[in-house]
């Protein structure tokens, strides 16, 4: 189990963090993003996609709930569960099958949708602070995700 809270100083730091984590994602990985409106979930998801090697424009999935992108390293699925019942909806949309087949998935508003047991996601909860652009990120995941700790720690020293 890994747990930690980190400060991302600026939008640039948030993007660096996302890109570094995106570069390390492996087939079947799920990243769950929590936080209120405007906390920076979509910005972070976009940099994850960039780090994962997606070259297409990644925009908010809120309207159609699920967007997927194909890059050299595989399929990147970006979901917004704000108004849906998570597991069943993702199952119905065929998204879970894709993840089981090796796609990576990032989910916004994951806390609204009680993720499934086998997901073993990296859970990141974003919070804005009184400083413009600064974000607090709480990171929680199983030991399988221990490689992300140094990514965050390195950014703390920058």
């Amino acid at each position: 189990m890994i747990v930690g809270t980190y400060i991302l100083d600026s939008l640039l730091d948030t993007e660096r963090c996302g890109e570094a984590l995106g570069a390390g994602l492996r087939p079947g990985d799920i990243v769950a993003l929590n936080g209120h409106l405007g906390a920076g979930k979509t910005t972070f998801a976009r940099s994850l996609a960039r780090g994962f090697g997606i070259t297409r424009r990644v925009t908010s999935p809120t309207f159609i709930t699920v967007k997927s992108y194909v890059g050299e390293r595989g399929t990147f699925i970006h979901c917004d569960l704000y108004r849906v019942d998570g597991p069943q909806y993702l199952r119905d949309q065929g998204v879970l099958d894709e993840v089981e087949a090796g796609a990576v998935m990032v989910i916004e508003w994951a806390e609204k949708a009680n993720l499934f047991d086998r997901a073993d996601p990296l859970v990141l909860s974003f919070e804005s602070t009184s400083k413009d652009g600064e974000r607090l990120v709480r990171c929680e995941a199983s030991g399988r995700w221990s490689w992300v700790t140094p990514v965050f720690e390195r950014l703390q020293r920058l």
Partner: protein
Amino acid sequence: MTRAVDRGEIVAVLSVPRKISVLGIETSCDDTAVAVVIDGEVRSSVIVTQQQLHAEFGGVVPELASRAHSQAMTRALRRVLYEANIDPLRDLDGVAVTSGPGLAGSLMVGVAAAKACSLGYGLPLIGVDHMEGHVFGSALEEGLELPALVLLVSGGHSELVMVDEPGHYRFLGGTVDDAAGEAFDKVARMLGLGFPGGPEIEAAAQGGSPDTVAFPRASVASDLDFSFSGVKTAVLRYLQSAPDAKVADVAASFQVAVVDALMIRVKRALDLESVASFAIGGGVAANSLLRERTVELGRDLNLRVNVPSRRYCTDNGAMIAAAGAYHLERGDRSALDLGIDPSAELMVKPA
């Protein structure tokens, strides 16, 4: 200030083909919309809205939307054919349907209904891109003189498109994060207003001062791209710092910031492109301030502008029938195994 714009020579006029009659079906989001277009004229149009259904959730709930489409579809079709007073077997030349982009479950209902009509009436089927539909929406009442710059703004999209010739779409810029309509929905939620956010914010802004807060007009790297995530966050921060702020003032300040951001990009695009006209389309094009600004722009630049009636800005079946008529006239057909494409893109977009 009057400024001469580089007026392009009119290469073509995009309008609804005169000799083709089409049933159009649109279910990409939360409106079950069907229409009959006969010889280039909208003969009947029926829109069953689900707004009330989704209002309490502050946005469209996909599962509820597809179920409501299924419930409304048969009645909507019966009514639109009745109002058109036609015999579909004799008077129609085809069935057009939105095949994407949009919500998967909702799109499926429309496509299934279109296939049924195609089979039942023995009519050719044509799948249409929703965004191309919006382009035709701006050409339903008055032909669109090409080359045209079109601003397409809705809950799921914010794009600046050049229509160089009929069927030739060139992406100039678009949102790098949230769509304009999505920003309206999300800010409405922050302000405790209802759904959909566009009309709610417009109504709330009536009594407010747009100069209360200078929200960012969002400048991003590429000159013609939009970003609405920043203004959303700025509203949130403002509300945290000024909990007693008047909703009307914040709504008015936000609305003007979004419209300014859109118009700044439009003017930039007009500086770069040689156009014969400018048009707006999509649900956000129903916003009064954006419509006023568009008319002013046309006057200032001595440029022809198409500002479609509100009923042709928001989702409707007529625009799909019109786009379908265009394709059918060219000989395009979809097979009966036509699928849906929830993230269809009309134009290639750079990263």
